[in-house]
């Protein structure tokens, strides 16, 4: 038999233990979180700071700016992008800007094309019953999705020869076609998920009001599906902006994109760390900014359809 006092004591003891455990688990959770923040951000931080380092700072392994080393514009000067060289002529900068523009045109072009035909297909598959030979809606959806497993190498060499014959080798247009293909399955996947959440009654109401099926799609459904379109557009943008394999094989001088330029610089031994870091920084910055600003849409796009 335990007395009341003892019981109260036990209870207090448990309470204390519980509080200690909670604090411990808090500490553990936050230290793990901050550890992974370090893992995720240190390489980005390192690249960013190295682009402001001089040779001595690189070889001595200085890490913290203003404390361990004084930032210099050396890396960006070699790209022609530092404050004192930005107005002067620079062949490196011209080259960089050309590649940057190519990347912008290619990725935006391919993403737009993919959204255009992908949204249409997704809407059709979500609303109407098709029969395409032996294929029904389910099979058509699977046909699109199955393109995901196709590794780029399978298409790369046939395309090399086809594009050579079609005079599409080393053109932005040629790259756009291929990039559209690589992101189309993802766009259709996300958009189908999006259209499925919009009740079909809305289409019917619009058609009762006298709109055609295309009118209902453009005037009524598309505005509602806009978040899904933004999500799939950004996801396409990320994938196409970073694409290297096709660009490396199918472009040489005219349509070369930024990743190919970065890769060609890393290949040469003895390249200056600061200019390489500056180049990498410029290549990743657009996406880092997009990632921070539009994180909500990226996560929406990535998790579309995974939870049913």
């Amino acid at each position, binding site marked *: 038999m335990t007395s009341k006092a003892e019981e109260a004591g036990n209870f207090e003891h448990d309470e204390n233990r519980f509080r200690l455990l909670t604090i411990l688990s808090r500490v553990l959770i936050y230290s793990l979180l901050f550890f992974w923040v370090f893992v995720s951000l240190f390489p980005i931080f390192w690249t960013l700071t190295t682009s402001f380092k001089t040779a001595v700072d690189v070889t001595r392994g200085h890490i913290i700016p203003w404390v361990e080393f004084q930032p210099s514009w050396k890396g960006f000067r070699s790209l022609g992008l530092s404050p004192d060289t930005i107005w002067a002529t620079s062949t490196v900068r011209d080259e960089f800007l050309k590649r940057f523009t190519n990347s912008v045109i290619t990725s935006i072009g391919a993403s737009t094309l993919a959204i255009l035909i992908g949204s249409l297909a997704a809407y059709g598959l979500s609303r109407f019953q098709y029969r395409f030979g032996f294929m029904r809606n389910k099979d058509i959806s699977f046909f699109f999705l199955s393109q995901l497993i196709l590794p780029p190498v399978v298409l790369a060499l046939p395309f090399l020869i086809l594009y050579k014959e079609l005079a599409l080798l080393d053109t932005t247009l040629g790259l756009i076609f291929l990039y559209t293909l690589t992101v189309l399955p993802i766009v259709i996947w996300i958009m189908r998920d999006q259209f499925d959440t919009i009740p079909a009654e809305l289409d019917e109401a619009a058609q009762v009001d006298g709109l055609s099926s295309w009118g209902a799609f453009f005037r009524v459904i598309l505005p509602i599906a806009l978040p899904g379109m933004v999500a799939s557009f950004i996801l396409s943008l990320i994938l196409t902006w970073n694409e290297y394999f096709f660009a*490396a094989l199918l472009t040489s001088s005219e349509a070369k994109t930024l990743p190919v330029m970065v890769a060609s610089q890393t290949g040469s031994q003895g390249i200056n760390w600061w200019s390489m870091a500056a180049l990498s920084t410029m290549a990743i910055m657009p996406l880092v900014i997009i990632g921070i600003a539009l994180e909500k849409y990226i996560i929406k796009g990535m998790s579309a359809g995974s939870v049913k």
Partner: protein
Amino acid sequence: MSSNAPSFDDDFEFIPDQITESRRRAGKLLVRVFFALFVGIFALQILYKTSMIGFGFENWRPVLYAYLAWAVAIGVGQVISRGEAGYRALFVLPAVMFVISVVIVPTLFGLVIAFTDYNLASFEGQKFNGFDNIVQLVQDDFFWNAMRNMVFYVLAVFVEYAIAFGLALLLNADIKARKFFRVAFLLPFMLSPVAVSWMIGKSLMENRFGPVARLARNLGWDSPAFFTNPWIARISIEIMDAWVSIPFIMILLLAGLQAMPRDVIEAAKVDGANPWQNFWKITFPLMLPVSATAIVLRIIFKLKLADIVINVTSGGPGGATDTLSSFIFREYRDRSNVGYGTMIAIVYLITIIIFITLLLGFVSKRMQKMT
């Protein structure tokens, strides 16, 4: 193509338009005219290129235009000959035709090249060499080596998954500044593998000045080298790829965790069980479907791994880090061996299709058993 075009089946509320016979015929005629035009130009160009006639086009571009015109005519023909049903078919038709032209046609073309000795560096032109490429492939140690490496890379997905699950649980815990952590964890996914190759592979892991090498020296590894020993090189490549892709798995799992009904979890909690036991008894089984999706998707992406390998090690040392894609890339880049490279790619594609089909079959069987 017009014969097996989409048509409607059991859409009960849908009443097909009344199409007159002449209109239907006009639509069919339009498609046929453009198809004839395409075939005509195609034939003309073949004759010209094989020097059987003296006139033709400088390159094959006009054939492409004729093809596009034919594709547009199919769309227009659908509307003319089938009315509203045609309008509806028009939604899905562009994507279907695009994929067929950009995937099926080149893959079939690749199948032809795969049985030739096509080499861009030789002037003799290509000729069929039957099964020579397959024989060469079976005897090619580098091919089998790359295949073994792929097994390692695919198995590493499970490690990535474990880490990603841990991160997703952390993000799903009751924490402050969740958005900050989520953005920070997501950022590596945004970066191009090529940039990552330099940022991590060539500078952080650089043997002399890289911070990772410095850390390794401080921890007692005298002369750290991340890309000279086969196993260390393979693991280094895997770490870089994991760094980029763990956020992808993490986001999928996080979505799964957030979709789980809280009350079910609370109700299912066993009295006296610690969080560890609760996780294995409740959360993990509930997360299995999402986990399967995440792992299968990740394996599919992993099978395309190439950029980092090409840029950091070029497959070295001695092919230890080669993936199939980087191997084929070099086969073309260094030897211009299009015929043999395409054969490897086709064999790889067939292997992937079989593997993924088996994997999906296995997963869906297990899922059925669970529910």
